[in-house]
C-alpha cells in the first residue's frame, strides 16, 4: 500500500476512535437516560393500550346489549331484510312490526302466531278469499307518524307493484315468498284492511308475520330514496336505528314509546356485530367484547360454561335431513329403500358427537309439535329392520344400493355437515347403502336445491343434505307436495308426487281455524312420515352463548327470538 494511502487510512481510524472516545461518559449516561425514558414510554403506551379495555367497558352506565350475529353484514334495514332468519331476528323484528308475530315468551312449547299490528280478523265464509283485519290504533312510527291501513297497502305495493313509486326490487326479492298468494289489498278505513287472496289460503296469517311495515312519511322525508332510508329507517318496532356502519355494526336505541309495554327493551342500546366466523364469536364472548353470541359451536360449549357464561339451547322448527329424489332414475322411488335409510342412522350416537346439542328426528317436527300428527312409521335406529327392507327390495351387502347425495361444507342451519355426513355414510354402508357425497359451497347447494331433482344439473343426484325450516306451513309441509297442481317452486325438491298427499295438503289451505288447521297439518305430516319422503336425521338446538350478567332471555322454540326482555344486571 502506498505511504500516502496508509496515512490516510490511519487518520480515518484515528478520527473514528477519537470521535467515539471523546464523548463516551456523556453518551453512555445520555443513552441510559434515553433508554429508560424510551422504556417508560413503551410501557406507558402498552399500558394505556391494554389496561383500560375491560375496565373501560365496566364503567359504562348505559346498559348495552352487544350481539354477535353469524352474518357477515348488517342485514338490509329498509323493512324486508336479507340474511334469512338472522335478518328477521335482529333487524326486521327490532325495527319493524308485521301484522302478525310469534309468541316468543315461552321456551316450553313451539311458538305460535299472535296478533301484532292486526288485532282481529275475519274471512269471508263464502269466497274464503277475502280477509278483513282490524288494525291496532295508536301505533306510531319512529318518525312520529301514525300507522294506518293505508300504510299496509303502501307497503304491499312497495313489494309487488313495479310501477309504484315506492317499489323496491331489493325488498321485493326478500318478500317474494310471502305475498305470492295475495291478489290485492285495500284500506277500508284508517284501521280496517281488506286482503284478497288468489285462492283460499288458510295459512295467510303465517305469511303476514314476514311482511314488515316501513314508514311512508319517512320515505318521503328522505327524498324517496331507499338507500338513504336504510340509514335513517323508520318502523314501529321496539328499537330505533341510531347508526349504521355497513359490514361493521348497527347501533339501536330503545323505543321507549313502543306500543306494547311488555316489549319495551330492557336495555338502553343494542349493538349488532356481524361475525361469520364461529371462533371469532366465541373469542369475542370470552373476552367480554360481546354479550350474546349466535350459533355457538358445540366444541366451545364446555369452555364457555367454564368461564361463567350461560349457554342456552332449545329445539326449534329446524330439521337436518336428506331431501330425497323421487324421480324415475332414483332408488328412493321405492318406499322400502326410503324407510331403510331412515332406520339405518344411529341418531343417539350422532347426537353424542354433537355434544348433546340436537334431538333425534321423528319427522319434520318434534313429537310435541301441533303439526306432528300420528305417524305409524317410527323413525329410529334399527339396522336389522333396515337390512330386511333392503333385502325385500332386492338389495344386500353384496348388492348395495348406490346413491349420491349433495352436501355443503358449511351453511345456514347445516350444523357440522362434514362430520355428520361421514358418520351417516358409515351407518348407511353397514346396512347396504353405498352413499357417495358431493360437497360444494352453500350458495351452490342452494342453487341446486332450488333447481329441483328433475333439473339437468341434478341428474344422477338422489338426495340433498339441506337443513330446512318448518316454521311456516307452506314452506315446511304443504310445499313438499304438489297439492293437486304443479310442483311448488323449489320446496318439493325431490318431486314427490302422491294424490293422497296432495289431497291432505289442500285441506289446511281451506281451514281458517288455527286449531283445526293444526290437525289437518298433523294429518299431512303423519302421511309424509309414513311415506318416508325424506331421511330425517336430527333437529338442531341452536346453542347460544350469553354473558353471565344477562338475565331474562327465554330461548323460544322458534327461528326468531325476543331480545327486548334481556336485562343486564
Amino acid at each position: 500500500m502506498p505511504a500516502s494511502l496508509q496515512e490516510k487510512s490511519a487518520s480515518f481510524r484515528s478520527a473514528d476512535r477519537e470521535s467515539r472516545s471523546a464523548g463516551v461518559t456523556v453518551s453512555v449516561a445520555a443513552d441510559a437516560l434515553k433508554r429508560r425514558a424510551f422504556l417508560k414510554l413503551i410501557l406507558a403506551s402498552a399500558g394505556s393500550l391494554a389496561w383500560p379495555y375491560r375496565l373501560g367497558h365496566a364503567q359504562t352506565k348505559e346498559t348495552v346489549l352487544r350481539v354477535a350475529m353469524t352474518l357477515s353484514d348488517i342485514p338490509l334495514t329498509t323493512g324486508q331484510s336479507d340474511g334469512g332468519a338472522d335478518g328477521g331476528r335482529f333487524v326486521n323484528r327490532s325495527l319493524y312490526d308485521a301484522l302478525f308475530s310469534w309468541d316468543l315468551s315461552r321456551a316450553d312449547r313451539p311458538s305460535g302466531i299472535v296478533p301484532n299490528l292486526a288485532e282481529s280478523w275475519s274471512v269471508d265464509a263464502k269466497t274464503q278469499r277475502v280477509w278483513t283485519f282490524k288494525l291496532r290504533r295508536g301505533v306510531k312510527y319512529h318518525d312520529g307518524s301514525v300507522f294506518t291501513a293505508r300504510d299496509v297497502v303502501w307497503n304491499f305495493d312497495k313489494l309487488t307493484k313495479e310501477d309504484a313509486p315506492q317499489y323496491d326490487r331489493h325488498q321485493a326479492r326478500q318478500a317474494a315468498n310471502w305475498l305470492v298468494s295475495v291478489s290485492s289489498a285495500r284500506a277500508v278505513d284508517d284501521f280496517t284492511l281488506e286482503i284478497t287472496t288468489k285462492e283460499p289460503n288458510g295459512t295467510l296469517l303465517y305469511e303476514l308475520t314476514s311482511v314488515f311495515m316501513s314508514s311512508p312519511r319517512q320515505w318521503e322525508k328522505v327524498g324517496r330514496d331507499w338507500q338513504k332510508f336504510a340509514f335513517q329507517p323508520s318502523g314501529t318496532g321496539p328499537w330505533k336505528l341510531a347508526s349504521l356502519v355497513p359490514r361493521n355494526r348497527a347501533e339501536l336505541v330503545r323505543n321507549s314509546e313502543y306500543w306494547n309495554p311488555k316489549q319495551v327493551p330492557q336495555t338502553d342500546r343494542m349493538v349488532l356485530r356481524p361475525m361469520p366466523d364461529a371462533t371469532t364469536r366465541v373469542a369475542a364472548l370470552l373476552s367480554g367484547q360481546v354479550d350474546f353470541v349466535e350459533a355457538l359451536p358445540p366444541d366451545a360449549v364446555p369452555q364457555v360454561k367454564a368461564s361463567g357464561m350461560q349457554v342456552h339451547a332449545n329445539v326449534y322448527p329446524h330439521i337436518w335431513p336428506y331431501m330425497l329424489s323421487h324421480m324415475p332414475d332414483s332408488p328412493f322411488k321405492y318406499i322400502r329403500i326410503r324407510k331403510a335409510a331412515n332406520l339405518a342412522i344411529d341418531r343417539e350416537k350422532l347426537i353424542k358427537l354433537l355434544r348433546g346439542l340436537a334431538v333425534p328426528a321423528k319427522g319434520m317436527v318434534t313429537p310435541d309439535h301441533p303439526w306432528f300428527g300420528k305417524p305409524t312409521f317410527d323413525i329410529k335406529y334399527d339396522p336389522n329392520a333396515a337390512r330386511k327392507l333392503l333385502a325385500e327390495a332386492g338389495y344386500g351387502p353384496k348388492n348395495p344400493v348406490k346413491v349420491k347425495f349433495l352436501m355443503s361444507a358449511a351453511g345456514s342451519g347445516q350444523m357440522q355437515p362434514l362430520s355428520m355426513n361421514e358418520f351417516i355414510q358409515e351407518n348407511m354402508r353397514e346396512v347396504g347403502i353405498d352413499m357417495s357425497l358431493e360437497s360444494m359451497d352453500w350458495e351452490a347447494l342452494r342453487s341446486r336445491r332450488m333447481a329441483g331433482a328433475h333439473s339437468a344439473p341434478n341428474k344422477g343426484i338422489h338426495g340433498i343434505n339441506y337443513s330446512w325450516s318448518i316454521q311456516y306451513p307452506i314452506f315446511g309441509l304443504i310445499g313438499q307436495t304438489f297439492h293437486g297442481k304443479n310442483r311448488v317452486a323449489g320446496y318439493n325438491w325431490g318431486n314427490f308426487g302422491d294424490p293422497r298427499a296432495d289431497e291432505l295438503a289442500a285441506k289446511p289451505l281451506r281451514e281458517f281455524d288455527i286449531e283445526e288447521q293444526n290437525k289437518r297439518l298433523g294429518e299431512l305430516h303423519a302421511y309424509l312420515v309414513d311415506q318416508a319422503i325424506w331421511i330425517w336425521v336430527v333437529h338442531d338446538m341452536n346453542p347460544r352463548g350469553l354473558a353471565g350478567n344477562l338475565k331474562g332471555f327465554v330461548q323460544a322454540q322458534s327461528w326468531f327470538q325476543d331480545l327486548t326482555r334481556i336485562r343486564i344486571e
Partner: protein
Amino acid sequence: MLWYTLRRVAYVLPILFGVSIVCFSFVHLAPGDPTSAVMPEFASPELIAQIKRVYGFDQPLPVQYFRWLGAVLSGDLGVSIISARPVWGELRPAILNTAQLAIAAVAISLLSGISLGVLAAYTRRRATDRAITTTAILGVSVPHYWVGMVLVAIFAVTLGLLPAMGMAPPDKSGFGLNDLRFMILPALALSMIPTAIIARSVRATVMDVRKQEFVQTLYANGLGRRRIFLHVVKNAAPSVLAIMGLQIAQLLGGSILVETVFAWPGTGYLLNNAIATRDLPLLQGTILVLAFFFVMMNFLVDLVQPFLDTRIKRQ
C-alpha cells in the same frame, strides 16, 4: 428516465386490461345462474327477469363484459346484488379499513424484518442468526390466521388486555388510541409472513453485498463500521425494495383469513362475503380494484428502483 417511465406505463396498460378480462370471466366460471342463489323460491318470473335485466345478466357474456368495462372506465363499478349499495360505496370504506391495518402491518414488517435480517446477516452462522432464521422459517410456514387465533387466545381471552375482534366504535374525535388498540392483534398476525420474508431476503442480500469486493475495499480504506453499513444497506436496497413492494401490495390487498378471523371489515372480509353470497358485481369490482392496486404498487417500485440503483436506469 422519461423513456423508462413511459415503457413501464406501456407494460402496465395491457396488464390491467388482462386483469379486467380475467377477473370478469373467472367469476362467471362458477356453474349456475348468478341470480338463482339470491332469488327466493316464489320469486315471480317477472321479478327474476327484472333483476337479470337490471344487472345485465340477460345479455351474452362478451356484451356483459364490454358494458361492465365501459362502466368501470367511467368510474361506475355497479351495484351489489345483495346489499343494494353501490360497489364503490362498499369498497371505499373497506379499502380504508384494510389500509389502516396494512400500514400498521407494513410498519411492523419493515421494522422487524429489516432489523432481524441485518442482524442475522451480521451474526452469520452464530446462535442469533440461527434463531432468526428458524423463526423466519416458522413465520412463513405457520398460517397467519392460526397465529391470529393464538394471539386472541392469549391477549384477549386469557389476559383480557386487547380486543378480540372488530374495529373500534366510530368516534368523532378521529383516529385515536382506542383505534390502535383494536388494530394491534390483527396487524401482528398480518405482519407475520411479510416480516419473515423480508427478514430472509434482507439477510441473504446483505450477506451477498458484504462479500462483494467494494466492501473489502471500504474496510481497507479504513471506513468506520457505520459508514460501511450504510454502503451495504444502499446496495442491498433495490432487491429488498422489490420484495417489500410485493409484500406491501399483498398487505394492501387485505387478507381474507385474517380479516375474517378478526371480523375486520376490510377488502379481504368483503371479498369473502362476496364469494360466499355470489355477489358478482361486488366480487368483480373488488378483485379489479385490488388487482389494480397490486399492479400500481409494482409499477411504483419499478419507478423508484432506478433512483436507488442507477444500473437499472442505464439498462
